[in-house]
């Protein structure tokens, strides 16, 4: 059938068509719709889907599923791979049993990312992770299917590396809908200590097996149709590109009215080096178009030394290393490479006031940030990820540092130990369950007397309202244990705990004043439901 699909939904269709039965992940932008939408359709397709507590537990869940013979799909945004890498790297050594595809969604230009403009392709190289890079939703579908095939054939997880403009792109996609039963068919774990346990001297044997495997996958990559050449092959100038940049290159050539051969790489790792060598050997100039860091360009330079040492390689010398690419940036660069004139459109700048993200109307954080600022104007504020990162922006301008999920409390502990200053660290309920607990335990154990304010809005809000362990509900809508943040904090050894509704600003004020002078760590849990969620819930009740 042919239907307009979002890139993320095309990945879902590709996984369903490949017989996936285990889906795990952690919500982040631009990958969140994969898990969200799997949650809606999993049961009727005989699939088990979960939001895990973080990306590491998500990957580990899928490893367990794969070892038990179930095909799995893991989904997360760029930074998720940092969190799960500790288990990801040994997984490449042990290999998988049933197929596993890991979607890593980068966000060049940081549209919805705070911490860095990460290029996750670095992991492909240093972890030896076979990686495919789709350009559009059709390729999201096709490549997901191919990734499962490769994973099954070589017993290795395959990474599907996407970017915001691929995940959030829509186009008509040709796909097949396979009738699936609603029965979740369980697998069986067949013991195989030799393959599933990394332990020297086996570890080094496994490394040798991995490198052998990669050599075979490289041969597969050399023959694969997803690495193809298009356009006028006689030209002495050629372009090598991958991912969404391919689409911009096609447009840029139309704009410049030129027709150059393009080697489009669907494989990022392992690269088809013979195919690349063939493509570059009789060229005078090669223009490598890739977003952010120049991994392919470096490889082309190495290959050129052997097959065409006079080759002129263009890439980051004419393209920016910061920010996503677009047709115009590529047209400007391409014009330089071919020696044509290109005048980009001049925009008439109106110097308008900038409208930045802000807290929603009725957001419980509106009650919290001003109180913290008023009561403790001199305190150091540790920020964290989630809706509370809006504390960085006007009119709050609250956070003194902000890094990664759960990092605020960890850094705050260090600041508290190093200074005589008052330190207040904030984090949301989602972050608390993701990795905040580890920071809390460290702060208690090592005797910090900082004040932690947990903003419990009863859901993981920023990424689109995903359930978390504090809600008593799973991704598939089943009732589950509702973990109490208060009880966990207590069990971590915190003596000064206050749970309150932040709408009672006086109570919050007193609690902050009281706790700031304590000699040991204190935690205030501000419990009030996200305003958008409250509105939605009351609308749903109204409908019923």
């Amino acid at each position, binding site marked *: 059938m042919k239907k*307009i699909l979002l890139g993320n939904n095309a990945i879902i269709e590709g996984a369903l068509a490949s017989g996936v039965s285990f889906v795990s992940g952690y919500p982040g*932008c*631009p990958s*969140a*719709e994969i898990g969200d939408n799997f949650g809606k359709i999993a049961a009727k397709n005989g699939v088990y889907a979960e939001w895990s507590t973080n990306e590491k537990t998500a990957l580990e869940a899928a490893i367990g599923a794969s070892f038990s013979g179930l095909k799995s799909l893991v989904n997360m945004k760029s930074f998720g791979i940092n969190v799960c890498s500790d288990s990801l790297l040994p997984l490449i050594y042990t290999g998988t049993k049933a197929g596993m595809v890991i979607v890593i969604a980068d966000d060049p230009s940081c*549209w*919805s*990312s*705070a911490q860095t403009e990460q290029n996750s392709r670095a992991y492909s190289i240093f972890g030896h992770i076979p990686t495919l890079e789709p350009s*559009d939703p059709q390729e999201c579908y096709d490549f997901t299917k191919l990734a499962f095939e490769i994973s099954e054939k070589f017993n290795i997880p395959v990474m599907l590396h996407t970017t*915001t*403009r691929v995940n*959030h*792109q*829509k*186009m*008509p996609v040709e796909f097949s809908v396979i009738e699936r039963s609603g029965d979740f068919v369980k697998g069986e774990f067949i013991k195989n200590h030799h393959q599933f346990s990394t332990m020297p001297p086996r570890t080094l044997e496994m490394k040798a097996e991995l490198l052998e495997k990669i050599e075979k996958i490289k041969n597969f990559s050399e023959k694969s149709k997803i690495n193809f050449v298009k356009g006028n092959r006689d030209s002495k100038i050629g372009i090598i590109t991958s991912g969404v940049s391919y*689409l*911009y290159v*096609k*447009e840029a050539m*139309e*704009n410049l*009215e030129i027709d150059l051969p393009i080697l489009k790489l669907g494989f990022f790792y392992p690269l088809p080096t013979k195919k690349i060598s063939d493509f570059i050997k009789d060229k005078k100039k090669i223009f490598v178009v890739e977003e952010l860091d120049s991994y392919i360009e470096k490889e082309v330079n190495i290959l050129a030394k052997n097959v065409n040492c006079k080759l002129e390689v263009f890439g980051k010398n004419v393209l920016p290393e910061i920010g996503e690419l*677009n*047709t*115009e940036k590529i047209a400007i660069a391409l014009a330089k490479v071919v020696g044509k004139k290109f005048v*980009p*459109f*001049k*925009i*008439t*700048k*109106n110097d*308008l*006031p*900038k*409208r*930045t*993200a*802000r*807290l*929603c109307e009725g957001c419980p954080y509106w009650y919290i940030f001003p109180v913290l600022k008023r009561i403790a104007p001199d305190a150091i504020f540790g920020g964290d990820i989630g*809706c509370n*990162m*809006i504390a960085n922006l*006007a*009119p709050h301008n609250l956070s003194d540092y902000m890094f990664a999920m759960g990092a605020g409390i960890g850094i705050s502990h260090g600041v508290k130990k190093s200074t005589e200053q008052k330190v207040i660290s904030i984090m949301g309920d989602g972050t608390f369950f993701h990795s905040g607990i580890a920071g809390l335990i460290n702060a208690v154990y090592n005797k910090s007397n900082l004040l932690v304010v947990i903003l419990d809005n009863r859901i993981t809000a*920023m*990424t*689109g309202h995903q359930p978390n362990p504090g809600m008593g509900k799973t991704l598939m809508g089943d009732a589950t244990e509702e973990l109490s943040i208060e009880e966990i904090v207590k069990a971590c050894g915190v003596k000064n705990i206050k749970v309150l509704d932040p709408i009672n600003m006086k109570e919050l004020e007193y609690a902050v004043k009281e706790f700031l002078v304590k000699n040991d760590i204190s935690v205030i849990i501000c419990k009030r439901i996200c305003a958008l969620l409250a509105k939605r819930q009351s609308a749903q009740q109204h*409908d019923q």
Partner: protein
Amino acid sequence: MTNKNFNIILTGVGGQGIITLLDVIDEAAFIQGYDIRSSELHGLSQRGGSVEAHIRFGKKVYSPMVNNGDIDLIIALEALEGLRESEKAGKQTKILINKYFLPFLNSFSKEEIIKQLDISKKDFILVSASETCKNKLQNEVVCTLYLLGYAVGKKLIPLSKESVLRAIKNVIPEKYLDLNINAFELGHD
């Protein structure tokens, strides 16, 4: 730059319903047999910040992103965002702006926004979509479909009324269907 495809930029403030509008336009273009690519943003930018989405349709489209200057139609759900997007407008660009203001810290006044639009000498049309929808349908959010109805009625977009109506039925959930169709019809007439 060449301009064979029809290029639209939708702009507004996070939460105004840009993605639903994009889905209806995508679907209508699909029904008319065009090749389509569109691009949208989710996440942080949706929390009350400026948001824009791109739609391109025609015989063959590669990139989902519209180049600056290469825009045929801008539909702005909020006036200041319309003014902001007009920076990228070329000579051929029509700018359809909802006469609706969502002020924020250090924002411009209504008068200032309209004055600046006048000064810009761009081809813009101000339509009181939110106000009309609020008065006649008791719902502001469907201003998106009202604006689309206006664009189709005034032939600012190469989509037929029939295909948009079919698209609305394919895209909008049953219980909001009548409301959306009414808003579209209201804008169209």
